[in-house]
C-alpha cells in the first residue's frame, strides 16, 4: 500500500486501522513503512480516508506474496484467506483419517506479522519429523523441497500478516512433532498458534487428545468441532426444503 502524497491531508485517521502499525505521520502526511506493510489493504477497505489517498499499486514478484497471504479477499483454491478447508469439511472429504493427526502452525498476527523466513524455520522442523505438507495450502506452494521444508529463497524476506503451515502426521508421531515445534519457538522473531486436528472415534474419544493428555501438553478449553452434517446430495435419502 502507498499513500498518494498529493491527495493526503494528514488527518491520520488511517493509522489505527493498520494491523501491523506500518502507517505513521511524517511532515503532516501519512507514510507507509514498506518493509512492515503486508499489503493486506485493511486501511483501504476501512474506507475512512476522506481523500481516497490510500492506493494499492500493482505488485510485482516477490512482493505479490504479501498480498496473497495477507489480503482476506484473496481466494486460494476455494477458500478466502490463508488457510484451507482443513477439518471444516472433513466429514465430506475424509482428509484427516483415523490413525493420522493434522497439525497447523499459524505464524504471525496479532500486530507482529511474520516473515517467510520464520515460516521456513517451522516448515523445516516438521519436515525433519516426517510430516506431510497439505497440498492445498498456499504456504506449501512456496516450499521448494518438501523433504526439507526449504522455502523459495526469493521470498524469505517477504512479510505477511500470517501464514499457516498445515501438515498431516501418523498419530504415533504427533507428540514428537508437537514437542519439536514448541522447542523451536525461541528461534522465532514472531509468535505462532498451534493446533492439532483429529477425527473422533465412534465412542467419542479422540486419539490426539489422549496423546496430548498423556504427554501433559496443555490445550485451550475452546475448540473447533465439525459436527458431521456434511454429505453429498446423492447420498441423501429424503428431500429437504431450502430457498431456491
Amino acid at each position, binding site marked *: 500500500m502507498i499513500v498518494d502524497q498529493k491527495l493526503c491531508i494528514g488527518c491520520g485517521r488511517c493509522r489505527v486501522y493498520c*494491523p501491523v502499525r506500518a502507517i505513521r505521520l511524517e511532515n503532516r502526511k501519512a507514510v507507509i513503512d514498506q518493509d512492515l506493510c503486508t499489503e493486506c489493504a485493511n486501511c483501504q477497505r476501512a474506507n475512512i480516508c476522506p481523500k481516497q489517498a490510500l492506493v494499492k499499486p500493482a505488485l510485482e514478484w516477490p512482493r505479490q506474496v504479501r498480498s496473497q497471504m495477507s489480503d*482476506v479477499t484473496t481466494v486460494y483454491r476455494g477458500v478466502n484467506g490463508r488457510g484451507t478447508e482443513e477439518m471444516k*469439511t472433513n466429514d465430506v472429504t475424509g482428509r484427516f483419517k483415523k490413525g493420522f493427526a493434522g497439525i497447523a502452525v499459524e505464524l504471525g498476527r*496479532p500486530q507482529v506479522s511474520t516473515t517467510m523466513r520464520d515460516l521456513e524455520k517451522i516448515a523445516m522442523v516438521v519436515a525433519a519429523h516426517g510430516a506431510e505438507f497439505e497440498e492445498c495450502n498456499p504456504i506449501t506452494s512456496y516450499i521448494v523441497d518438501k523433504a526439507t521444508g526449504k522455502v523459495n529463497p526469493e521470498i524469505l524476506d517477504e512479510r505477511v500478516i500470517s501464514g499457516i503451515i498445515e501438515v498431516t502426521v501418523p498419530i504415533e508421531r504427533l507428540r514428537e512433532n508437537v514437542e519439536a515445534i514448541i522447542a523451536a519457538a525461541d528461534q522465532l522473531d514472531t509468535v505462532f*498458534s498451534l493446533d492439532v486436528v483429529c477425527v473422533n472415534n465412534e465412542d467419542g474419544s479422540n486419539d490426539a*487428545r489422549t496423546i496430548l493428555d498423556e504427554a501433559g501438553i496443555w490445550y485451550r478449553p475452546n*475448540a473447533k468441532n465439525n459436527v458431521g*452434517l*456434511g454429505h453429498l446430495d446423492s447420498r441423501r435419502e429424503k428431500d*429437504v426444503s431450502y430457498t431456491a
Partner: protein
Amino acid sequence: MSHTLHRRGSVESLKKDIVFLALPAHRYNDQDIPMEEVGAKLRRFMEIGLEQGCICIGNASTGNLHTLGGVQQILDSTTSGATVHCVFDDQEKAIAMMQALKEADLGMSVVVSGLFDMLGECCQKSGLHMHTVEYSLGIWGNTSGLPAEPIMEINTMCGHGMVSVGRIQDVADKIKKGRMTCEEGGKELAKTCTCGIFNWKRAAEILAEIAS
C-alpha cells in the same frame, strides 16, 4: 486453519461466544450439485441462524453487515460457494440451532467453535456428534510484541486479524472519553472483520472492562 479457534478470554466470557460456520467441500459438494443450489443451502443456513436468534451473520466471500449494508444484502449476496457464519451468545440458542440444522439436513459441512465441554453438551442435547475436533495448544514464540490480554481477546475474534490493535485502543479511548458507548464500540470494531464473524456483543463487554 485457526479461524475462530484461538478466541481468548475467561470461561464465563467464552460461554457467550459460539460460532457456527458452514461451507461446501470444494470439489465435492460443488461438483455434486449446481453452485446456485450450494448458494441456496448456505443462505438457508444463515436464515436458520437468524430464526434461532444469532447476533450476526456474514459471508467470507462477499462481506459483512457493514460492507453489504444489511442482513438481507448478506443473504442476497450468497449465490454460490462460500464460508458463511452465524454467531451466537447463548448456549440454549446454540442447541436450538443445532437441532434446526439437523432437521434441515442441508448437506453442507458445519463447524461449531466454542468451549469444548459446553459444545459437547449442546451436541448431546441436539442429537449431533462431533466428527472431527481441532484443539488449540495456545500461542508460542516471541510474545513480547503482543498487546495486553483484553485487547487480544477482542483482536482474536477476527480470525484474519483485521480488527487492528490500534483501532481497538482508539475505540476504547473514545469510550473512556464518553464519545461512544460500548455497544457502539463493539459494532464499530466489527466493521473491518470482513467475514462478519466478529462477536460485537462480547467485544462491547470487554470494552466496558477496558474502559473501567
